[in-house]
């Protein structure tokens, strides 16, 4: 057993490269998914019915399919329509599209339960359209959703492990590679699990930190 772990330790660079890829993918995906979720949330709350229905269909569709299926669609099916990616970009795109739908739904929930007066005050001060959304609506709802958004980021980290199936060199993929080369399954995957756990704990701590800051400023 100790021997197994020393083999994994000897190949720690590979594991760390995988860990780095997982961190990069998750961070980029979170930022991009948040950015993409904003217009989707606006569409979900739009006055015009067809816009709302279209956004609702998109969001509900995403929330019904497994992430791996979307990753396969982006990686295998889009090229047949003439859109080509390498597997790293395909993986990132799938993470962004999938989680943007979930984040849009989270933000919509917070927006819908936001006090009406807040928005009316913004309107009275002459804010409208995009500016109203960006300056008045978005900041409080993002802060209100912080814990749920943190959970979603943990979901993104865990979803990124699926990308091993389309050969993205993330943490699980590297652990798999080490195990298949030296046959050290226990040590390799337990190391990966520990690294995932550390990463998720860090996200939880970061979310708690941001919340404390936000409360102190209020």
């Amino acid at each position: 057993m100790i021997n197994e772990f020393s083999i994994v330790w000897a190949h720690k660079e590979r594991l760390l490269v995988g860990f780095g890829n997982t961190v990069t993918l998750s961070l980029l995906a979170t930022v991009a998914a948040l950015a993409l979720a904003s217009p989707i949330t606006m569409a979900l709350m739009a006055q015009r019915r067809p816009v709302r229905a279209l956004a609702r269909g998109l969001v509900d569709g995403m929330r019904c399919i497994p992430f791996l299926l979307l990753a396969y669609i982006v990686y295998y099916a889009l090229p047949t329509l003439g859109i080509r990616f390498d597997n790293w970009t395909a993986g990132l795109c799938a993470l962004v599209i999938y989680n943007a739908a979930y984040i849009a739904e989270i933000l919509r929930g917070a927006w819908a339960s936001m006090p009406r007066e807040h928005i009316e005050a913004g309107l009275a001060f002459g804010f409208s359209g995009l500016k109203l959304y960006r300056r008045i609506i978005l900041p409080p709802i993002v802060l209100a959703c912080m814990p749920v958004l943190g959970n979603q980021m943990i979901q993104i980290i865990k979803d990124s492990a699926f990308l091993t199936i389309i050969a993205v060199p993330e943490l699980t993929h590297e652990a798999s590679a080490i195990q298949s080369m030296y046959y050290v399954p226990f040590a390799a995957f337990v190391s990966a699990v520990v690294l995932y756990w550390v990463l998720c704990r860090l996200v939880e701590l970061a979310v708690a930190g941001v919340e404390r800051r936000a409360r102190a400023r209020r």
Partner: protein
Amino acid sequence: MRAYDYLSLLQGTAVTVSLSLVGIGLGVPLGLALALVRWSGVPVLARLVAAYVSVLRATPLVTLALLVFFALPNVGVPIDPVPAALLTLAMNTSAFNCEIWRAALNDFPRAQLDAATAAGMTPWLGFRRIVFPQIWRISLPGLVNEMTLLIKSSPAIAVVGIVDITRAAVRIGAQTYEPLPPFLAATALYLLVVFGFVRAQRSIETHLDRKFGFA
């Protein structure tokens, strides 16, 4: 896609649904047992359960499936793909279910427990007659939500060689060189399965509503 391809997708659906159902059937009671250990504060065990839940909630299903399938034989426990998949699903969902049950238990009014003790009920009888009938109704929406999440992460078990809906769709796509139609068919199948679970929850709730006047 030919008739045979549709048949293999349906077979994949049967695999996804049956493995998920067994995983849920094992994971929901196991989650309750874990929650009870934490709730009643059994000295060392409660700490161990907290660690188990924390680690499993942070572990991707793919990684867990690989760990179970490759590492168990390595420590002398041979395991086939199907039991490995079931163990993976049950372990994963039990950690999340534990938190759902625990939230309901923590909100449970202390006074009712005291009343049960005062009426001479043993803790076990009090749990069966007073606590459980109330907490399962409170936990139901959370548990069903977790079930749909489990179904959506179930394609992970394909890494141990099980052909579920997603895997069947990939195979058809690779054979026909037209991946889009099987993927769309798979999407429709997942929609049906997830919708089925949500409908079952609704009908249980309306049934309870009619029988007891509240859900």
